[in-house]
Every structure is written in C-alpha cells, then in structure tokens.
C-alpha cells in the first residue's frame, strides 16, 4: 500500500501530512507512558520486525503493492501510541533508505498504514477483549480479528482518499473492488502472522503484551522459609484504552485535514487559490490546456495549476515537517527530559 510520489494531488498530500504530523506529535506525548512500561527496546524490536515482514512485497493491480502492515500487531504489543511511532519509524526508514513510498507521500503512508491500521486494530482488540474470557490468551483471537479488519479498512481509506485527490482518473468502482478485494486477502495473511506471533509471545513472555497486561495472572513466589506469597506483575497504569484524549486528538487532526481536503475537492482550482495567496496568481493565470481533465489535478498535472500545484506540494511537505517537529518539540520538552532519564535508560 506504499503510495509513491505523485500518486495523490497536493492538497491530499498536505491533508494526510497534517493528520500524520498530528498523530505522531500527539503519540509522542502520550507514548512516554507506554514506553516507560515496555521500554524502547520492545518498540524497536517491533519496528524491526514489522519492517522485516513488510519487506515481503508483491505488486497488485490498480497501482499498489500488497504486503503485511503490522499495525494491529504493533498496537497489541506496545500499545496504540507507541505503535503509531513504531509504524512511522518504519515508514520513515523505508522512505529514506529504500525509497519504498515517496518522501512527499510520507504523510499519506503514515496516515494509512501507521494511524488507521493501529486505531482500527487496537479498538477492535479492546472491544473484543471485553467480550472474551478474562485471560491473557484472549488477546490472541481479539488481535487476530483486529488485524483482519484493519487491513481492508485501510484499503477503504485509501480508496476514499483517491476519490478526493487521485492524481490520475481511474474509475472508482474498479479501484474500490480491486483494493478492498485484494486487501481482504492480505488481511487474512496478516491475521495468520499476527496470531502466530502473539500466541508465541503470550506463551512465553505474557508480560510483553501491552493489550493483555491487565489480564496477567499473579505470580506465586516461595521465599527462603518456604512461605508462599503472590505478587501481581507490574499492573499497567494505562491499560484502559486511551479514551478521551485520544479521541480529541484524532478529531482535531481529522478536522484540520478534513477542512483542507474538502476545500480541495470543492474547488478543483483551490491550488491556484493557494498560489494566489502567495502572490503567484499571474504565473497561474495562463492556462495552456484549460478544460483538459488533467487541469483539475495538482502536482502531476500539466497546465494552469502547475506552478501553484508544485508549490503547494512543497509547502505541504514543509508544513508537514514543521508541524510535526513543532508538536514533537512541545511534547518532548514537556515530558521527554524527565521520562528519558528516569525511564528510557533503565527499562
């Protein structure tokens, strides 16, 4: 599902960039708590593992490649906030080192594969855990279903994004059928791997599964005099789903992004508007091929929206980076200094 450069138009890239930046910034702030519990090592391993599994990459029709995503698994292992960071890290490395997924499409990729799959996977897992028996083992079926559902949902989001801002006009029906149909298959594969990994972890290191920490059985210890005592394995502070604040954060970024993309879809020439605002309207005035279907699409198109579209693309990336860094800065100023020294190092 890695989206290459030039696949979506500029406003969509900006919008998804904003969602991604918001989600990453917010997760950074929240993740300190999870990382305090699991340690950066588990997050790093999960990232490496997801990365390794994602390397198995095969081409699919209608323009994307299919492979395992790993969002639901990551969420179950390290919790939703850290999982967003884990997936973002993986995508950043893929974009930087392997050119897998365009650098200008990083925001889109993080949104689809890093945010949507994690949220869907985690919330399905949590919901099912409520219904299933209160045992650590229940996390396996719960997350398996979460993984199964998260993939087609991400594919659906992709299709939705395409309707709003696809760079080249492909019939929607064809695209939606191909994407969702294929990704149900991918989801099955994802479910199998997720189940295999989680059941191994639950069997040998139940303490590593974030989603099941509150379900862990007490340990029985025998002391020097032969007396037994039970100790509860470190009860997590944040085992309840990251409820309201998570919702607020997601809603806020969705709102910002939504406004931008609505604006973009309602005004096919909205890019020109951005250009005009920045004083480039004269450059955009002459329309060589006005009326061509391509005129409506930004970055990759030819014609009147060229300059503005490209500028918007550049601005989009810069804004993405700036917003991400700013949010991250605030977040890390607030908590990382403290958390880093006392928690990261000693976990």
């Amino acid at each position, binding site marked *: 599902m890695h989206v290459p450069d030039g696949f979506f138009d500029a406003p969509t890239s900006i919008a998804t960039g904003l969602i991604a930046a918001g989600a990453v910034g917010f997760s950074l702030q929240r993740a300190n708590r999870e990382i305090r519990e699991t340690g950066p090592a588990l997050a790093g391993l999960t990232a490496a593992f997801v990365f390794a599994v994602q390397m198995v990459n095969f081409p699919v029709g209608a323009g994307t490649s299919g492979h395992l995503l790993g969002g639901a698994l990551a969420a179950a292992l390290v919790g939703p906030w850290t999982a967003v960071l884990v997936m973002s890290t993986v995508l950043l490395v893929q974009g930087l080192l392997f050119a897998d997924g365009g650098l200008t499409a990083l925001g889109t990729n993080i949104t689809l594969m890093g945010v949507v799959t994690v949220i869907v996977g985690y919330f399905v897992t949590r919901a099912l855990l409520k219904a299933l028996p209160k045992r650590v083992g229940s996390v396996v079926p719960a997350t398996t279903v979460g993984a199964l559902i998260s993939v087609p949902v991400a594919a659906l989001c992709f299709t939705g994004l395409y309707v709003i801002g696809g760079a080249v006009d492909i019939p929607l029906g064809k695209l939606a059928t191909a994407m969702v149909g294929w990704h149900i298959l991918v989801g099955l594969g994802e479910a199998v791997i997720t189940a295999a990994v989680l059941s191994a972890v639950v069997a*040998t*290191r*139940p*303490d*590593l599964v974030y989603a099941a920490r509150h379900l862990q*059985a007490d*340990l*029985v*210890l*025998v*002391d*020097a*005099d032969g007396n037994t005592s039970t*100790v509860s*394995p*470190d009860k997590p502070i944040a085992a309840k789903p990251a409820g309201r604040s998570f919702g607020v954060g997601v809603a806020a970024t969705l709102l910002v992004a939504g406004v931008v993309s609505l604006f973009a879809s309602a005004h096919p020439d909205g890019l020109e508007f951005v250009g005009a605002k920045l004083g480039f309207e004269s450059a955009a005035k002459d329309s060589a091929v006005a009326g061509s279907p391509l005129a409506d699409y930004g970055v990759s198109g030819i014609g009147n929206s060229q300059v503005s579209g490209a500028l918007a693309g550049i601005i989009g990336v810069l804004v993405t980076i700036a917003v991400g860094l700013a949010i991250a800065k605030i977040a890390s100023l607030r908590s990382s200094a403290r958390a880093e020294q006392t928690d990261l190092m*000693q*976990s």
Partner: protein
Amino acid sequence: MSGPSIHVERLVFAYPDGRQALYGVDFTIQRGERVALLGPNGAGKTTLVLHLNGILGSVAGGSGSGRIQIGGSDLHREHLPEVRRKVGLVFQDPDDQLFMPTVRDDVAFGPANLGLRGSELEDRVQEALVQVGMQDHADIAPHHLSYGQRRRVAVATVLAMRPEVLVLDEPSSNLDPASRRELADILSGLDVTLLMITHDLPYALQLCERSLLMDAGRIVADGETRDLLGDAELMAAHRLELPYGFDPLSVPGPER
C-alpha cells in the same frame, strides 16, 4: 567503598513466565575475596549474578524480593549507573556481550562511557586486548571470530573498565587450555573482588579459596573450596564430580 563488596539477603526471583529461579539466597563476599559459585545446570547461578548489577530483579522492574548491597549501599534504581561501573559482568554467552561493529569499538565502549577519550582510551583498549591475546584481531567484526575468540574479547571488554568487583559466568568454557591458564594468571593478578561461576572444579580450586554451592535456587554450602570438593557426599548430592584421577589435596590451591 565501605562494607562488604557483595551482600545478598533473602533474594527471591521469578522469571516473567512464572518460573521461580531463586528461592531465598543469602551470602556475603568481603572486599578482595575470590569466590567460586558452583552448582548443577539450572541451579540459578546465572540468574543470581544478573541481579548483582541490577539487570534482573525488582530494581529492573522484575518480580522478586530481597536485598542486595554492593559496597555497603543498597541497590537502587538511581544508583544503577554507578553500581554498573563498579561491578563488571562477563556474560555466559559472548554473543550477548558483543554488539559493536569491531572488536576495538566493543572493548572501547565501556571505558568511553566512563569518560575516557583519545590516547588514554586507546591505551586502555590495547592493554585489555593484549591481556587476552586478541590484539591482532582489533579491527574484525566480533561475529566473525571463533567462539573461543569471542569469549576472550568478552572478557577484555570488562577488564578494560577496571571494575572493583568482577563477576564472570563460566569464563573458561570454550577456551583452549593455554588461554584457560593465561586467564587464570590474569585473574589472580588483579586486585579485585572476584565471583566466578564455573563447572571446572580444578579451575575453581586453583583460583578461589572459597566456594558457594548452589542448587535449586538456594545456597546449599559455603566454605573453603578444598573442603567442599573433599566432601564426597555433598558433591554427589548436587551433581558435582571431580575429573577422573583428580585429587583435590594434590593441588596447591591459590596462593595469596
């Protein structure tokens, strides 16, 4: 540093999967002592020594109880970096210990963390490599060495930190006989507190005047190595046997 080098009291520990490995361990090692830790496979020896610098146990967030003092002060989360500077630990598996791209970097890692730089750092690294006879392999990746060579580098990484307390988990296994003797010479020349796990009983007798015998997560005997090895009944009860034809009384034992 005041007080005994290592003091352990009522130490209990269970691994996260629920298996209890320590069932109340007590012992004290005074400054400058050389002690062997003996016991059958699975007795809990490795588990115990991993507690001594806070890698396992309640300070590391694990489940367990009891008390550990290093140099007279309790092991606390805040003191861990300091304690780890004092207590040098050689792991049983050299692959766990070596992680840098070259042997030189790996040996330099500890001293660099202690703040050494430049030629001082280089000298320290060189000295440690010469001690274990690996100076010709300084620029090789550790995972490209033979197993015994890796073990020697693992020992060097800890020697380079000049710890006050040296804890070694089967340092002589997989070493060729000459390296084994050379290591014994190095160890007996160091002015440190030494705790060494080994299954090589003559080696223990040669290096350590005192031994702790561990089984099933408890210390079951504590005394002079020679006495312990001479107690046939005790030995048989805990799967210890002297090699064929070896008489503990025939060996001079450590000179102090």
